[in-house]
């Protein structure tokens, strides 16, 4: 379009004003905020009204030990998962049909089925193979619900982490590999010095999300007799029938997840300073 064409356009409505002082939105927003505030105040009122020092005295140590179990479970399975994810990610990117097929199948299975079903399969399913497991000396491991949960969670998170790793490595441009090669770096050197530093920036946020998902997902171990934070909550609730036991758990989980998200944000801001414009 040239300037002459523009002048021939007959008449155009003025664009609507930008939503600077759009009172309707403000009313709606304020109403919603008030509702949130009311919910928050209601919650505080509920907790104050049902404040019970005995209950706190009796169950606070349980909650702490439950929290510790949750943290242990998540940290250890994330680490094992990270180690397992490396060969799987390599398999996914491999040109070898069998390798990549196996890795793909693994990832698809663990990402396509619920963690709860996987945990049941490991805990109750393997429980019915007690004698076979005993024979190969693995029963002492699978006897314990905690180890079963750790096993299922590690395999599960390995699948997700492998995809994160693969996605991050593939997000780095091909030119980077070529440039590294041109400089005479070996493949391993290129991966370590050129590709991974860039890939990890991309992977940071998905990794953070994966940890958060694991913390939330770990609540299901309560169903297979592990006394994590959720397990202790259910135990306290089954004794007291006091709903505040669940509210406390909700507050603790929310606090952890929010803290973690803020930490990831902070790290991301720091390591991407050179990219900011």
């Amino acid at each position, binding site marked *: 379009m040239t300037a002459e064409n523009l002048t021939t356009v007959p008449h*155009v*409505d003025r*664009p*609507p004003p*930008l*939503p*600077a002082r*759009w009172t309707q*939105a*403000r009313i*709606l*927003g*304020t109403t*919603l*905020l008030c509702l*949130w505030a009311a919910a928050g105040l209601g919650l505080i009122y509920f907790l104050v009204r049902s404040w019970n020092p005995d209950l706190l005295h009796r169950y606070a140590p349980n909650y702490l030990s439950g929290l510790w179990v949750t943290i242990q479970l998540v940290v250890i399975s994330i680490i094992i998962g990270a180690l397992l994810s490396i060969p799987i990610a390599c398999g996914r990117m491999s040109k070898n049909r069998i390798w990549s097929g196996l890795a793909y199948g693994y990832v*698809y*299975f663990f*990402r*396509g*089925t*619920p*963690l*709860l*079903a*996987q945990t*049941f*399969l490991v805990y*109750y*399913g*393997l*429980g*019915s*193979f007690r004698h076979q497991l005993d024979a190969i000396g693995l029963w002492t491991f699978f006897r314990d619900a905690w180890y079963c949960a750790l096993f299922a969670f590690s395999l599960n998170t390995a699948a997700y982490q492998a995809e994160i790793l693969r996605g991050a490595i593939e997000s780095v441009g091909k030119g980077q590999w070529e440039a590294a090669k041109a400089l005479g770096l070996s493949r391993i050197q290129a991966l370590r010095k050129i590709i991974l530093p860039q890939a990890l920036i991309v992977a940071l946020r998905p990794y953070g999300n994966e940890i*958060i998902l694991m*913390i*939330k*997902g*770990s*609540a*299901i171990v*309560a*169903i297979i007799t592990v006394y994590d934070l*959720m397990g202790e909550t259910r135990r306290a609730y089954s004794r007291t029938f006091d*709903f505040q036991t*669940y*509210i406390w*758990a*909700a507050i603790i*989980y*929310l606090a952890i*997840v*929010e803290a973690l998200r803020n930490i990831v944000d902070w790290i991301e801001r720091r390591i991407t300073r050179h990219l900011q414009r």
Partner: protein
Amino acid sequence: MTDYRTLLSFGPEGWGDDIAAGVLVTVALALATLPFGLAIGFLVALAKQSGEKTLRLAGNIYTTVFRGLPELLTLFLVFYGAQIGIQQFVRLFDAKATVEINSFVAGMVALGAVFSAYASEVFQSAFRAIPNGQYEGGYAIGLSKLQTMRLVILPQLIRIALPGLGNLWLILLKDTALVSVIGLADILRQTGIAARVTREAFLFFGLACLIYLALAILSSIAFGAIERWSGKGGVQR
């Protein structure tokens, strides 16, 4: 040894019919959650996109809460907490009234809240991917704000958000397994009962995993088709 064919048959001795009913419940729950999860997710994304500070804050609190709580806990809060809360609220007006949140509705509300919190993020990043010029172009040809949204922005938005939403659907499908804990007769609960009763835990939980896997594969195929269909009208960049 028990005969697996009998165990999985549809007859009175077998669990096939119960598990098939469980599959229906799972699929129905996921399908029932989807539309209202999407709608609320979209509204929350709009709120978080808005220029109005209070709206943004309200939207952000929503996502913070429902992304931060474990899904299982959200489910308990809705199933027990909301039930008792609403009950007391209704009793203010009518002492005799009973309100029942059955486990299906509780599952729908809890999963929908979680789904919409994540969906709002997907929509929000899709909003960011649409340049301002698209809105300006819409206004320039005389469309109202609503028309611009409906005719110009939404079609592009959906196309951009589709892969993300597809992922969320798969997550939703898996999260439905949690309702088995509050007693809704879904796939996992039905296979769990069968496993308990027959003591064939590996068979039945393995079967449960395979059914979820089949549902995931079917969903991927369907989503592939939808993406191809929606991509037809778009410009290839």
